[in-house]
């Protein structure tokens, strides 16, 4: 029997879409946005690992680090220990980390990972709807830091340094960029309000 070779070069639009064009400009980066430039973080309610609802707006008044990740994402796993550290270090300062996993296998994949790595913050399984609410999550990790007023102060796509996150969190915790509305509600003197 002869062996015949059919050479087929197959390029599909989908294969090109993300791999060849990169889907988005992935140079992450953001200093904390001026208060006037921040948009309200879309609210959502999803269940955590023990079935309790996690509603983003319940965290109003806190600084929230909202991290989109997945168990198959290597760079995400570098950041998770930092977030564990932040959750522990800043928990008494009105701060919380929320993890949103985009694992297709859901809790089957995520729960063992959460347990194995002793993740100390709440994790939910994200949906396509949630991804679209946040502008379409093209790459992981994608992390938003949300101010006390529930507005997105920074967004990072891709791996960022721990120091950069920490500086941004402290900026928001220390009220340097405190939104006026939240400042008034908390009785912060006028000269601390963000301009």
């Amino acid at each position, binding site marked *: 029997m002869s062996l*015949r070779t*059919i050479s*087929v070069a197959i390029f*599909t639009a989908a294969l090109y879409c993300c791999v060849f*064009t990169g889907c988005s400009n992935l140079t992450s980066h953001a200093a904390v946005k001026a208060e006037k430039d921040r948009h309200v973080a879309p609210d959502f309610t999803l269940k955590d690992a023990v079935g309790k609802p996690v509603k983003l707006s319940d965290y109003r008044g806190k600084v929230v680090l909202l991290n989109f990740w997945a168990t*198959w994402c*290597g*760079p995400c796993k570098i950041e998770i220990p930092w977030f564990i550290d932040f959750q522990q270090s800043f928990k008494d300062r009105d701060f919380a980390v929320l993890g949103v996993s985009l694992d297709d296998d859901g809790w089957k994949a995520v729960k063992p990972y959460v347990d194995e790595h002793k993740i100390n913050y709440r994790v939910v399984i994200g949906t396509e709807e949630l991804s679209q609410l946040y502008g379409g999550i093209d790459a*992981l990790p994608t992390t938003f830091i949300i101010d006390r007023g529930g507005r997105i102060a920074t967004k990072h796509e891709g791996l960022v340094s721990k120091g950069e996150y920490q500086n941004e969190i402290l900026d928001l915790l220390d009220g340097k960029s405190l939104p006026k509305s939240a400042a008034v509600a908390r009785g912060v003197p006028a000269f601390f309000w963000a301009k």
Partner: protein
Amino acid sequence: MAKAGSTVEAKLTVELRNGYHCNSDKPSDEYLIPLKLTWAPGVLEAVDIAYPKPNLEKYSFSDKPLSVYTGDFEIVTKFKVPATAAAGPAILTAKLRYQACTDRMCLPPKTVDVSLPVEVVH
């Protein structure tokens, strides 16, 4: 063209953009999503799928080298053409699942459709 009763090969060429890698068909970690080509049943029977030899690459986000593909590579499928295969044109279809990353971020896993037109002759 595929002669009934013979064996033929098809090569699927994949091109990855510079800076990206995808996991090989046998990734280093159970959490990683492997590259996988799956042919649907058709007029030809896929009897073997040969993936290229992967590279072991070290990335900043991983403690150990990862088994990955980079650049251009080929996946070769060997098909058996049944002696009783109906003569004439046909389309073989497959799905290619992959998941690509750079050294800083990962794109979601994707499944793309592959189609291979063939002609069976007797």
